[in-house]
């Protein structure tokens, strides 16, 4: 239940509201999750006050040298429509259906993501950096997930920065094209050879399988990351074995 609704006109107003001890106050990025009857496990389950970010101008896609800034309230559909790497567009496209992509924002999707989120896996592979107001603290996405609200309480994500020079490849297995994937392997590779591989498809957040100066050992890393990847949708054995296949394919397509 929402106890209060606020639509601040400035970032400071928003931060003042979010800094309150009570009631627990959270940003309303687009509304795709907070308004729903069943919030994802990652989001607060108690009654909250919400701060609607729509007037703060946090939307937009801005190239910045070797980086691209994605405004926190940029809808996923804007990524699909933008001139961005195909795999990133695909990750936004496959994350949810058409109407929800107009509502669901970059920040909201990342904060609410579980381990099945294709978009979160892709962004984590890209080593996305979150900028948090008020201090413009920069937080790697991977560090957000173990304890999201410890990082976010009283703060506001304003943008997400991704490298513009890294290649991204996604490999997935799903019961159908738009159903939630059973397994995701997202691999990003920088011109230096640095290679990051993230696995998804189960659990509470995507899993970093590898971050190294070169892709050596990626298949074993994929297998290891899926070692305990069992849930009611697929066994760990299946995910382990198929993760190796997908990792191999991802690396092959990077070559």
């Amino acid at each position: 239940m929402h106890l209060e609704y606020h639509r601040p006109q400035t970032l400071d107003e928003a931060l003042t509201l979010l800094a309150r001890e009570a009631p627990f106050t959270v940003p309303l990025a687009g509304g795709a999750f907070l308004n729903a009857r069943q919030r994802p496990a990652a989001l607060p389950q108690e009654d909250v006050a919400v701060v609607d970010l729509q007037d703060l101008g946090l939307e937009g896609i801005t190239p910045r040298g070797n980086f691209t800034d994605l405004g926190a309230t940029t809808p996923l559909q804007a990524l699909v429509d933008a001139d961005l790497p195909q795999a990133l567009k695909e990750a936004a496209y496959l994350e949810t259906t058409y109407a929800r992509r107009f509502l669901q924002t970059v920040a909201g999707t990342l904060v609410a993501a579980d381990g099945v989120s294709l978009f979160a896996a892709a962004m984590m592979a890209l080593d996305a950096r979150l900028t948090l107001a008020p201090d413009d603290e920069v937080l790697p996405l991977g560090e957000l997930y173990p304890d999201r609200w410890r990082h976010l309480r009283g703060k506001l994500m304003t943008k997400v920065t991704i490298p513009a020079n890294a290649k991204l490849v996604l490999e997935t297995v799903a019961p159908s094209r738009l159903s939630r994937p059973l397994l995701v392997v997202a691999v990003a590779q920088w011109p230096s050879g640095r290679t990051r591989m993230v696995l998804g498809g189960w659990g509470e957040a995507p899993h970093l399988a590898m971050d190294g100066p070169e892709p050596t050992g990626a298949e074993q890393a994929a297998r290891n990351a899926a070692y305990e990847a069992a849930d009611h949708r697929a066994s760990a054995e299946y995910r382990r074995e198929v993760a190796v296949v997908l990792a191999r394919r991802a690396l092959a397509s990077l070559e």
Partner: protein
Amino acid sequence: MEITLNVNGKQHAVEVSADTSLLDALRDLGYSSVKRGCNDGTCGACTVLLDGKPVYSCSVLAAQAAGHAIQTVDSLGGQQTGWDFTLDLHPLQEAFVEVGAIQCGFCTPAMVLTAKHLLDKNPDPTEQEVRDALSGVICRCTGYEKPVKAVLLAAARMRGDEEKARRFAAEAMPEVYAVPQVEGYHRVGQPDRKVDALKLVQGKPAFAEDFEMPGMLIAKVLRSPVAHARIKRIDTSKAKALPGVHAVLTWKDIPRVVYSTAGQSDPIPGPLDTFSLDNKVRFVGDRVAFVAAETEEIAEQALQLIEVEYEELPVIIDPEDALKEGAPIIHDEPEYVDFGESDAGKNIAARIRIDIGDVEKGFAEADYIFEGEYEVPRVHQAYSEPHVAITYWDENDRLVVRTSTQVPFHTRRQLAPVLNLPIKKIRVVKPRIGGGFGGKQEVLMEDIPAHLTIATGRPVKYVYTDEEEFTAARPRHHMKIRLKTGVKKDGTITANEMYALSDTGAYGGHALTVVGNTGHKAMALYVGDGEYRKHPNIRFYADTVYTNTVPTGAYRGYGATQGVFSVERHMDKIARALGMDPIAFRLKNALRPGEYHPFSLAWNEGREPSPETIDTNALREAAAKAKEAVKWDEKYNNPEWHKVPGKPHLRRGIGVAMMMQGTSIAKLDMGGAFIKMNEDGSFNMMVGAADLGTGSDTVLAQMAAEVLGVPLEDIIVVSGDTDFTPFDKGAYASSTTYVSGAAATRAAEQVAERIRIRAAAMLNARGDGDEVSPADIVLADRKATAPDGRFVTLREIGFNSIHHENQEQIMGAASFLSQASPPPFGVQIAEVTVDVETGQVWVDALTTVADAGVVINPLTASGQVEGGVNQGLGYGTTEEMPYTPDGQPLVRSFRDYHVPLAPEMPRLKTIFVETFEPSHPFGVKSVAEYPLNGVAPAVANAVYNALGASVDSGPVTPEKVWRASKAKK
């Protein structure tokens, strides 16, 4: 807080809370075109345009929408019925009506709005772009085929591209190979527009929840968090004390009446094992208490204040555990009423033992014995409109129940004892239904608001939540099936044996009849060849058992679905082992015209069986058309076709399944119709049949219009109101076109007879020609015409009969009792691509060829096929409802349950090969159910063809394919 909402250009000042959704605010303002579906941001029925972009209004706060332009479908166009009658539909709305893109219509406003947004930004979209745009609106009726064509058609028309428009309109039509009998028909066989399409495309308040009453209370139900327990203590005092709460009811407060929720004719062919409320809960989601309060929020708070102490009991989740010695007994109540061989003390809700011929002798005569085990999952119908019921006392102190039901007359009869009211004190009204697919062939929840209306005297509305739909409605039975088949070297089946273990969940409403159809429909198709064809050997044993899971019930296919998956997988494996083409093997052993239905002497839905001959069966012709359509012979055994160039990890496969269903329940299903003539030559047709989106109002009207010689617009249909329409058993068992259609035809024939008599009298009174006999009068083009060409219009006859001379009300009333259940037949072929290394399956194409008798309306009939195929695809690939070992459901909402979306649908092809069924005046058989049944086994068989890997349980998931592939190696 007070905000201003700009809806369709009109400013509305509204008071909302921080929690009020835009959906609630819009519906409170009267915009009932915005439909409440899942209310959880998944189904898309509530889509509106916000600054021109589609959003789910249930997922937007009303406060968020302030300052933005909100657009609902009401703004697009519509029918003005005032002084200046105009019809100014938007081209999208026109196209949806024209190509039959509207079935239940619940999602139609959302689809039209989303399409409008697409065409505003892209006037010439590709089909894939249209499918992507529609991905956010779940439609279970249409398979998306016709909505996609409608959008493309409208776009072409709006661009002025008439050539493409004609092409898209034509693509919405199926191929129909007609019988000669239909050549003289004017309305039968025509793609007439649905009689309810206009109101649905405009989003008019047609559905159960689109109805407000002053003083209406909101009902909520406290549901069990545990799978099996006795209620040791329940304290409602705090809930009752909450301001705004008008009633809190527990098992102590209402009459204890045992009943069945299955919406079936009397006597119910199943055990009576259900109470409105009980002191025991049997599954997570079972009822504990009812609340009626001023608002939804107060009702939910009241639920939190009810204190319950449970004494937990051991839980059964696996149906095999239910039969074990010492298993906990789920139904130990003394009021339990057995039916047939049910035995609550052993957790058996139904038992069937059927032996036809000499099965053991058949096995002994076989060259090979093939055995297999199969398993099919519990799956949900996933209709868009939730269960909704509104109850109130009318001015005559009769209880009115406005409910989204497929069975209004059964609901009235079955509610009466539960409420301790006589039948005559209850009126059930079925408004437009937002899909049901069997899930609303149930007296599932009407008793809840009814008890609360009785307790409070106030109108009460109860709407199932998304979670209630997935945890406490009536999905399809999970089954484990064993098959054993004896076969000679030449492919002749000598004997067939099936054992089905069916999981009815906590209550056994459809326990007997569903599993009965598993054998009756699926096993009966393959009788053997030669002498075995004359004397088939078939054994069908089944046990339906209770478990502590959601009760199961009716779902399109009704047990045949589970049987077809198993039998068709089994047949494919046998054909492969024998080195035979799977189509040829099936046809060698399948029923043929003129043969007895082998089960007809053994079983009839729990009633007295009687012999039935299969008069019409175009299975061979259908198989030939299907083979030709998919180029079967170029693919099935062609190693090159199986390869995907440049992608060695991919393999193509093709698979087939054949289906047989029934058409009504013989000697039981009855429907009535009443038709009266108006002054202007129009007719009111009152039918008890329940159109739940299938188009039955339309096809019944087409049959009446054919007899009366008028266009469809002259037939005004009222259906499904127990006070104003004759009895009809309801929308199930593939019966409406056949049973209710025959009743409508008979009633129309009575009316036509009176019209001819009066027309002859009027013509003869003129004295301007030869004497004409009523028998020579032909009704067509709104005229009654004599052989010499003289005529009187129906309008003249209408005025003459009502006002001018020998006044009478021209009318007819008739009913039809089915004497047979003529089976429709079908062939479905799936083409897939499989990833050998991951097990991922992409379904590329699905072809359906159906013998449905005469097709009354090719658009509605093909719509039934396409919708069934969508559900079959989900059954085959993505849908299942698993439980944890302690009975917690793992699927609790649409978010957890993936149904095929518009971009995921493969290429669909629908072909009808007509036959003329002699037991019906227009030669019809059914089409509603069986197009679902063959898809899943055809997909599994296509995977088998691609990899040689046998997946014998549904759905065909990547891991199952991967494991089967590994096992093969």
